């Protein structure tokens, strides 16, 4: 689907699908296209960072971003270190690039929990209704009743600090929004004629749920993922501040928190660099997510409350 979306020439010959009309709609929003480009650059940086990480790891050497140079501690930005160095003389730019890797890894791993959970529960609730629906509504009402930051902190805290805690914490809390939307869609779709036709032809409930209805709600997953990504990044910073964040690797949250004390000594580049790196990705994802929603499903109510 991304292939056809990325290649408008291939679309001309094809009948109009949801994706082709959506892409035409999306393209009209110039700001969103620019932001999609920014996201693409970040994806490139992510792949590069991932290769740096694995190169060092497989060869069992200290990766370049971890090489400390005590002669150049807290160095100003210069030709050698574009964004200066941190308290151990490590290059900030190299660390920021690894921060991209951490941000993407968190987003992908969290989504690997959030999307199956939210999708399956939402589909079951919407499709089967009755007691299944009631149980799942109870479940998400309960999860939703706990202020999300408190439940994420709690889970990350008991699982232990590090990537695992963050991912499990956010994954087990953030599925509620997706579940609600998917449930609503299934409620709508199960009354459509094509579902009755599939049932009449002898398709089982599972087949109807996953083969017939699921493709019609896939776009919601994409929208939710794009809009959830920036929230993962911002939450990671808070978790790092609370001491349940990433350890041993340079995430943006870790860098911002490390910069906390040094800001008072006039070391602004560490904070500035991490904030800027985060800002452009979060901004671009927010704008792309909004444009995607407008293009794919303008009536979708993803506007959650202003308090995250």
């Amino acid at each position, binding site marked *: 689907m991304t292939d056809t979306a990325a290649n408008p020439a291939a679309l001309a010959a094809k009948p109009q699908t949801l994706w082709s009309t959506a892409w035409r709609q999306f393209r009209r929003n110039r700001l969103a296209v620019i932001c999609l480009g920014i996201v693409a650059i970040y994806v490139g940086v992510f792949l590069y960072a991932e290769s740096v990480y694995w190169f060092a790891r497989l060869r069992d050497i200290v990766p370049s971003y971890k090489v400390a140079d005590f002669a150049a501690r807290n160095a100003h930005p210069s030709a050698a270190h574009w964004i200066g160095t941190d308290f151990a003389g490590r290059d900030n730019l190299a660390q920021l690039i690894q921060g991209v890797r951490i941000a993407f890894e968190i987003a992908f791993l969290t989504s690997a929990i959030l999307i199956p959970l939210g999708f399956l529960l939402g589909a079951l609730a919407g499709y089967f209704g009755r007691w299944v629906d009631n149980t799942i509504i109870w479940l998400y009402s309960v*999860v939703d009743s706990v202020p999300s930051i408190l439940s994420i902190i709690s889970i990350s805290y008991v699982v232990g600090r590090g990537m695992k805690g963050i991912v499990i914490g956010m994954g087990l809390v953030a599925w509620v929004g997706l579940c609600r939307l998917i449930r609503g869609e299934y409620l709508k779709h199960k009354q459509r004629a094509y579902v009755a036709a599939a049932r009449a032809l002898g398709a089982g409930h599972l087949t109807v749920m996953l083969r017939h209805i699921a493709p019609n709600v896939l776009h919601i997953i994409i929208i939710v993922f794009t809009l959830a990504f920036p929230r993962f990044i911002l939450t990671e910073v808070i978790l790092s501040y609370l001491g349940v964040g990433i350890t041993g690797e340079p995430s943006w949250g870790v860098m911002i928190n490390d910069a906390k004390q040094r800001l008072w000594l006039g070391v602004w580049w560490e904070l500035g660099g991490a904030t800027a790196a985060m800002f452009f990705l979060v901004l671009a994802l927010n704008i792309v997510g909004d444009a995607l929603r407008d293009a794919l499903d303008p009536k979708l109510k993803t506007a959650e409350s202003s308090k995250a």
Partner: protein
Amino acid sequence: MTAYIIRRLLTVIPITLGVLLLVFLIYRVIGGDPAVRLAGKNATPAKIEQIRKTFGYDKPKFFNWQEVAKTSSPLAAFDSQFWQIVRQFAQLDFGKSLQSNQRISRMMADGVVPSLCITTPIFVIELMVAIALALLCAFYRNTWIDRTFVVISIIGMSISGLVYIMLGQYFFSFELGWFPVWGFEGVNYILLPVAIGVIAGIGGSLRFYRTIMLDEMYQDYVRTAFAKGASHKQVLFKHVLKNAAIPILTNVVVAIPFLYTGSLMLESFFGIPGLGRMTVDAIYTGDEPVLFAMVFIGSVIFVIANLITDLCYTWADPRIRLQ
């Protein structure tokens, strides 16, 4: 009407029990043995066993069937970790802090006032400014004024709250010295945290309320109002604002638990002895009873707030009663 209220009141029970179950699962099941966590890294097995005994972690988690078999009284099944917490919390007994050995209910009572001193002004100012700007955006929708505000609010949302706090404290308290850096001794101690809180949150709020207002702007009644010759101002304030009251109310109520839990980061940065800082300290020191109680109480307040909104709906919008 009464039937609706009673039905709505009854939903509180399964949700509250569910929340307690969820928090219990997090602290006693998902994370493994809590005694091991409390004992720290270099604990001896004897020490862990002792902690298990003192806190009752050696009891079964949900139902004590062994005890039932022994004493042959079915009530003994409730001699378990979970039901003990249910009993305690029902009496508003949250146990004692591991760090200070103070009663947690006492600590909460002490922390509520400083927290509310910070969060209430943030909440009220942010709400008023956001609604005013949202009406402005709706009034000038799709002009450069509207677009500027949208862009500013998305930019504002894309910066971490932590950065606002760090920069605000650095510039206004440290560099310029306009406000105290740390403490809670007078009005000037809360001005900067409140200002930072409003600025950090206004982007998200404005965007949210603008969407609500714009949704209303395309409703039929707006067209009718214009058609009968109502001015733009009348439509906005007399029609749109009133109809937008329900979604606004929902969002306002969702924010209420945050008044209580306080701003975690603001309080710990500015040294305000509220519930937010209490929570942060509890995370740093591994004070699990405090965390458990904070998470549970925060959720109960949310459940109650939700209940009140739903009851307000029936008053604000009579159609809801029919459902």
